[in-house]
């Protein structure tokens, strides 16, 4: 058996985008913005059209080294991003735009180590750097910033997997992600020209994931996945983090199935913590527009209620001559759980209620395979 295996390659990706945007700078909201669902856009308006070309060439090298009981997998990825934009500054009259063209290099070392100290038990750890180019929609000179560079993430994880009797597997993984140079809105009331967005965003996510599986045996199979995590964001220089707009503390998914002859029975249960929302603590009347405006409390200081759903599936396969017909009945949200999807307020924000998701829903389907 070879002790070293090396893989080398090159990834290449090119994209071109032509964009037109007209309206308020503050909507749609970005991650970190204070807003409530259904809030009208700000009264400010502007317009911009621009185009971008983003080319990424990324050679990589990955080695697999067997060092005694350890499997060590070092890797190195060297990306070179070419980011071209049609305009560096907002358009004034019919003057032609002065474009920009930048080469953004990124060097991403990565390492993974795994070992099996005893039979059926594997312990692993990995870490590495990752880079991502700015989105085309963020590179406009009016609503964004054409000079945005790469965002960076450092990942680290460690875990163990155990193979148990009767076809059971259990995996436990802890993870930590540190994010830098995230694209966020400028907090300045008067930012520099073509700098409505900056890269002052920082973030981190950490948590643990547990996955327990039972492989198909005697017609029964199933798995349970549970993740406890916390994701936070802040502006560089801020002393404290706040919750990420899409943070979910607990996510649980349990699925089980049973196969009997041509029949397949499935059940799925999902639970997830509600995502954060910024509470409205008061309001004031904008007498010029004739509508109330919210006064916000602590950013992401509350959450939507948690989500739960129990789903069932029954499927039967029938052979008709040479064709196979699969009939299925899916019933989602069997318990008719009232799952809030969003907070809505009355006209002066003094009362709130929720927009709920789908009630119990049955779908009958058929698939014919010839």
């Amino acid at each position, binding site marked *: 058996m070879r002790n070293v295996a090396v893989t080398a390659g090159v990834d290449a990706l090119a994209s071109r985008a032509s964009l037109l945007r007209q309206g308020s*700078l503050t909507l749609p909201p970005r991650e970190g913005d204070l807003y409530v669902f259904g809030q009208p856009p*700000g009264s*400010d308006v502007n317009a911009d059209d621009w185009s971008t070309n983003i080319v990424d060439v990324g050679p990589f090298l990955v080695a697999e080294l067997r060092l005694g009981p350890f499997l060590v997998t070092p890797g190195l990825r060297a990306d070179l991003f070419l980011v071209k934009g049609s305009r560096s500054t907002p358009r004034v*009259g019919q003057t032609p735009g002065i474009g920009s063209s930048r080469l953004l290099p990124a060097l991403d070392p990565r390492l993974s180590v795994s070992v099996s100290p005893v039979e059926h038990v594997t312990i692993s750890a990995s870490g590495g750097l990752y880079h991502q180019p700015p989105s085309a929609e963020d590179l406009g000179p009016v609503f964004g910033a054409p000079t945005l560079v790469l965002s960076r993430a450092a990942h680290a994880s460690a875990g163990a997997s155990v193979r148990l009797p009767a076809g059971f597997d259990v995996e436990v993984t802890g993870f930590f992600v540190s994010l830098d140079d995230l694209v966020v809105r400028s907090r300045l009331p008067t930012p520099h020209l073509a700098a409505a967005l900056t890269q002052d965003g920082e973030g981190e996510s950490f948590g643990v994931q547990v996955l327990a599986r039972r492989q198909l045996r005697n017609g029964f199979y199933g798995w349970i996945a549970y993740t406890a995590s916390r994701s936070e964001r802040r502006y560089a220089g801020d002393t404290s983090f706040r919750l990420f707009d899409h943070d979910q503390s607990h996510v649980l998914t349990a699925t089980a199935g049973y196969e009997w002859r041509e029949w397949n029975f499935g059940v799925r249960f999902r639970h997830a913590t509600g995502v954060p929302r910024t509470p409205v603590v008061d309001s004031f009347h904008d007498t010029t*527009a004739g509508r109330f405006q919210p006064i916000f409390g602590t950013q992401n200081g509350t959450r939507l209620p948690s989500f739960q759903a129990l789903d069932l599936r029954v499927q039967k396969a029938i052979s008709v001559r040479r064709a196979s017909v699969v009939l299925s009945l899916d019933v989602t949200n069997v318990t008719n759980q009232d799952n809030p999807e969003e907070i809505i307020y009355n006209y002066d924000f003094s009362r709130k209620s929720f927009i709920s998701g789908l009630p119990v829903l049955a779908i009958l389907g058929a698939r014919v395979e010839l």
Partner: protein
Amino acid sequence: MKRRVSWGTVCLVVAGCLPAEAERESLVTGPRILAVRSEPPESKPGAPVLYEALVVTPDGDLQGAVVRWAFCAAPKPLTENGSVSTACLGDAVRPIVGASVSVTAATPTDTCSLFGPETPPGDFRPRDPDATGGFYQPVCVEALERTAFVLERITCNLPNVPLGVAVEYAERRAPNRNPKLAPLRAFVNGAPTSLDALPAGGDVRFEVGWSADDAEVYPAFDPRKQALVDQRKALRVSWYTTAGAFESDVTGRSSEDLATTVSNGWSAPDEASRVFLWLVLRDGRGGTDFARYPLDVKSPL
């Protein structure tokens, strides 16, 4: 002693559901600052402006209310979607002398740099105008533990526009002026009816209008076309009352609709009473007018 609990109370406590009419913006159930009329509605930096607030309660106007006025002194950061900076709900204000429902104050001389397109020396991003090409100085109004803002349109130069457009804009621009509400008329079963003899429980149709000159045409800079385009003002009327129920809280005419009147249905309360009605006319460029009417609802003879 047994205490009787009505089904209505049960509904309020258990289901948290208020009667539908309590959710209507048009129904005045507590102190409100419904509108502020500034005269003129568009001013140059340093020019005096008369502000008059419409402060109401379910018992009618409060002409003698103590009102605190202040100019907002903090521009809105890009991270906020509201009409004014949250800093202006705190200390970032310049108090205006006076504590009555109307005060006169000069528009701050630095308003075009704080809230308009003027930027410090260097390459800074000018603030964006509204869809009518306007910039606004927020003025905070506080009365009866209620907070409101009025946005005074300010006369500033256009930001980052071609020279020819700037010259044409300077020649053609005219400061906005307030629209003027015509007297309210009431109809019952199609017949004109006096406001002091409206039938209890009856269906009343109100009609109000404005002058054709109020829907004026004005030039506005279109950032996509990089040119001036002519736009016509849209006008809308907000209806408020202390009892009864309107068909619509707001009625209006779009910029393409040249009609100068709007009507609204009103279900009068079942009991004979005095009801207060307020109308607020807004033109979309900061121009406002308002009117107040006492209505006498009487039982059929």
